[in-house]
């Protein structure tokens, strides 16, 4: 059964028909062609598919697409301001906070949700914020350092 669905994808209004049981990750990747959220497990275990729904970090693989009706869904594709990198992206680059890069989109979105609600987090709060995001190669220290570093940088306008 197909159902109509309308929501804001990275600030742009989209309307489409989706399968009633479709999850948000499939809609973003296969239907809208936004490949920035990644499939890692499909079980909510790895965080590679993390996106923001109305500014809050969510696992898109476990989110029923129908549940984002009328809401704002932001992915890594929205983080840059034109050609300019978001401070988080710059800090990840400077701090070597990515290796294979597969967890990076989810990490960045989880970190953005944190900094948007808490511009000056403690190390413990950063660890807590990315605790649902699995990284298998970079190592968490560089990622935590990058998030803390980004918090100290001048803010880009969201």
């Amino acid at each position, binding site marked *: 059964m197909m159902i109509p669905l309308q929501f804001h994808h990275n600030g742009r209004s989209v309307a489409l028909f989706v399968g009633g049981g479709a999850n948000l990750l499939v809609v973003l990747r296969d239907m809208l062609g936004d490949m920035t959220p990644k499939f890692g497990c499909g079980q909510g275990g790895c965080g590679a598919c993390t996106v923001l729904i109305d500014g809050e970090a969510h696992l898109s693989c476990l989110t029923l697409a129908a549940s984002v009706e009328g809401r704002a869904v932001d992915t890594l594709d929205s983080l840059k301001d034109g050609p300019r990198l978001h401070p988080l992206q710059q800090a*990840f680059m400077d701090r070597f906070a990515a290796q294979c890069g597969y967890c990076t989109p989810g990490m960045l979105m989880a970190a953005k949700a944190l900094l948007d609600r808490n511009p000056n987090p403690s190390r413990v709060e950063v660890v807590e914020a990315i605790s649902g995001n699995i990284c298998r190669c970079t190592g968490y220290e560089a990622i935590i350092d990058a998030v803390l570093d980004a918090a100290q940088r001048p803010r880009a306008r969201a």
Partner: protein
Amino acid sequence: MLELRKEYFADERDDNLNEIGKGTQRQDMLGHVTGASTYFNDHKLQGMLHLKVLRSAHSHARIRRIDLSEAERSPGVRRIIRGQDVPRNLNTLLSLINFGVDDEPTLAVDKVRYKGEPIVAVVADSHREAFEAIAKIRVDYEPLPTVFDVEDALKAGAPVVNETYPRNTFTYHERYDHQKLRFGDVERGFAEADHVIEHRYQMSPIEHAPTETNGSIAAPDTNGRYVVYTSTQALFFSLDTCAKILDVPSNTLHFIGGTVGGGFGGKVDTLTEPLAILGAMLTGKPVRYIFGREEEMQYGPPRGAERIYLKDGVRRDGRIVARKVRAYFDSGAYTRLSSYAVVKCAAHLPGPYTIPNVYGDIYCVFTNRTPATAMRGFGVTAMDFAIECQMDRLAELVGLDPMEFRILNAYRDGDMKAHRREAKNTALVECVQVAAEKAKWPIREEFRRMSSRQGVAAPAPRREQAPAPRPTYERAPGYEPAGRNEPPPPPAPAPAPAHGATRFSSVFGTRRR
């Protein structure tokens, strides 16, 4: 060659390659932080079909019958692929370098040898329809006795896992059932030791658990070729493996990859590409075959488990005089790369130490477990774990500091290794010294002044000289490797300071041109 480069490409690269200590940005970092890096699964192709495999429910069973009638009628099914559809349904990965005998089918035909072995592939319009068709396949199994323990597998009367190797061990050079190392007389060494200890070390299989699961997308390209987007860590290795299995010239295949979402050795086995390409060949459509997380964790090949028995003889003064190793590498049901891991393991004995009597037997054993594969130093890592645990035990036994104990036994330049190669550029002594210093671990002055270069004060140009009669350690005349019997007298003052980073870099510094 070098001159040509200098003449024509003089501006392209600075000859000054001193990069250590400077930050250098990864070339793929911008793509990673913006999400622009393209992994295999980020390709969306028109009309793409989805491939899923039916996996064996048993660890060891004969396949009596496969009933596809219901699955064939299942909605969305485009094609069902069986073993007989695979042009060359038997392969071993290292056959590309003429090592080993073809022993593993792409799709099992008469028998399954591990739980989760692929039997039938279904190509359907969607993921879901492929799964639904899989659920409708009926396989009639006749379960067979299983063996999961490496030592049980070697016992007489053990179930034969893989008929290619009826004795459940990989065959080296068409006749040897294990890798063997003999140096000196290990029993005499034990007899002359003050203490002899033996311990058993058992490793577990380890799943690489990359965040991106194994997978590939294959699509018909122009001129009868196929383009393949893949997660492989070994692009050309996978390409050649597919060319062999599908019996096509390798220039039929165009592999695109290199951006891998974590591999660690778990993406070298060419697990998905042959079936994805075959699916594309049979349907004329792009076909995607990606592991789900459960498949990755359960049936993706792990680091093979090793069981190691280590027996060492040590003298009261801290010298290890004999080391005997018996080890079993659990290859699972098929060879893949484990035969090579065992060679590496044997080549690593007895660790980076000079021991006059060494004895090693290393087996590559087949069991009904998931086939093992590469992972970060496989073959060496587990052996090192066992050896270093044992080193700590030995140090405690003779009442020596563990760091000093390692320095005492470390190989030196010019020592004869158990493989009858002269040790060169060893630097282990200096490594331990630096590690001790960094860790603020106190070691005694005499150990801080030791060097991996014997007779460091007057570096004897051993190469240029007429071949001085080397002590023949092969015959183990005693335990006297080149004047190392007594704790050596402090060598003539090495370039001061005689320890720490300066020392370490100076060792390598002299090697560099």
